[in-house]
């Protein structure tokens, strides 16, 4: 059980990071830009008619650092909830009889 979980976690890490080292000159660029490139290819006359709401308020693109901050906030909220709930479950199991 424990070994399986550890093996699974290692597999996940490998899957996530091997491409990074295998493809040294790839850009790993932002994902949204690429979709817009294809749109230009297949529908050249199309103009996007709305911009993200935060960019409108800021009058420009969100700074990269701030964007990563917000992504971290999202991850943090999620991890916090999962850790809290899992922690409760784990502790509770000690008090349960089964």
């Amino acid at each position, binding site marked *: *059980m424990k070994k399986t979980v550890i093996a*699974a976690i290692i597999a996940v890490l490998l899957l996530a990071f091997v491409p990074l080292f295998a*493809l040294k000159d790839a850009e790993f660029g932002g994902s949204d830009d690429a*979709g817009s490139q294809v749109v230009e290819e297949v529908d050249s006359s199309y103009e996007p008619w709305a911009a*993200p709401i935060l960019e409108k308020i800021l009058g420009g693109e969100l700074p990269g650092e701030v964007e990563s901050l917000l992504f971290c906030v999202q991850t943090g909220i999620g991890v916090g909830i999962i850790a809290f709930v*899992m922690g409760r479950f*784990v502790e509770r199991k000690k008090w349960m009889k089964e």
Partner: protein
Amino acid sequence: MSKKQKQIIALAGVFALTFGIVPKVNAMHVMEGYLPGGFCIAWGALCLPFLAAGFLSIKKTLNEHRNLITLLAMSGAFVFVISSLKIPSVTGSCSHMTGTGLGAILFGPSAVSILGLIVLLFQAILLAHGGLTTIGANTFSMAIAGPFVSYGIYVLCKKMNINKKAGVFLAAALGDLFTYCVTACQMALAHNADTTFGAALGKFLVVFAPTQVPLAIIEGILTVIIVMGLETYAKPELRAIGYIKEAK
């Protein structure tokens, strides 16, 4: 059981690594402003019945078992975490997972539509990722189509008596992959002025699908890990939800 799991993981790893290393860019959600107005409204309208069903289903579940709110919060949090992690893929660009498989397996597909909508709103407003005008289309692909496929595969695997964890893995991974196929369809439906629908669909699929394959596998593995953890520590909740059958 654990031997089988190891085999699955090893197979998945080999599959992903040998999938072909082709530098190419990709996309995930439909970008803000990239769907014509009519499509935005149509996809949004299509989502409404699912969202209503999801709201009712969550309400019903919570009315019956108040303590399941912890598990629900956890499924939502799982979507939050998973969809915020941008992971480099074999195609040389980054993409992220959906994380909706877990909720779909535990709470049924319609309940996930609400969880997915929350995440999409967060990303559209704060992260300029996806968008408010395309929220209907994105909700449909990530929070409705994907979870329904996940749930369908999970139920099918259960019926065919396939190992439960293998079922969970397949459900989460294929649901994730399907989300991106639906996104490709949505884009191709709206943008095929210069070519045919089929050609556009092919182009979008090439952009979306290969990047997503290894990520779908990662999502499958992560979902299995979480499910294993829950099976160990949250038996009462899983029983209440019908994931573990009473007589066993």
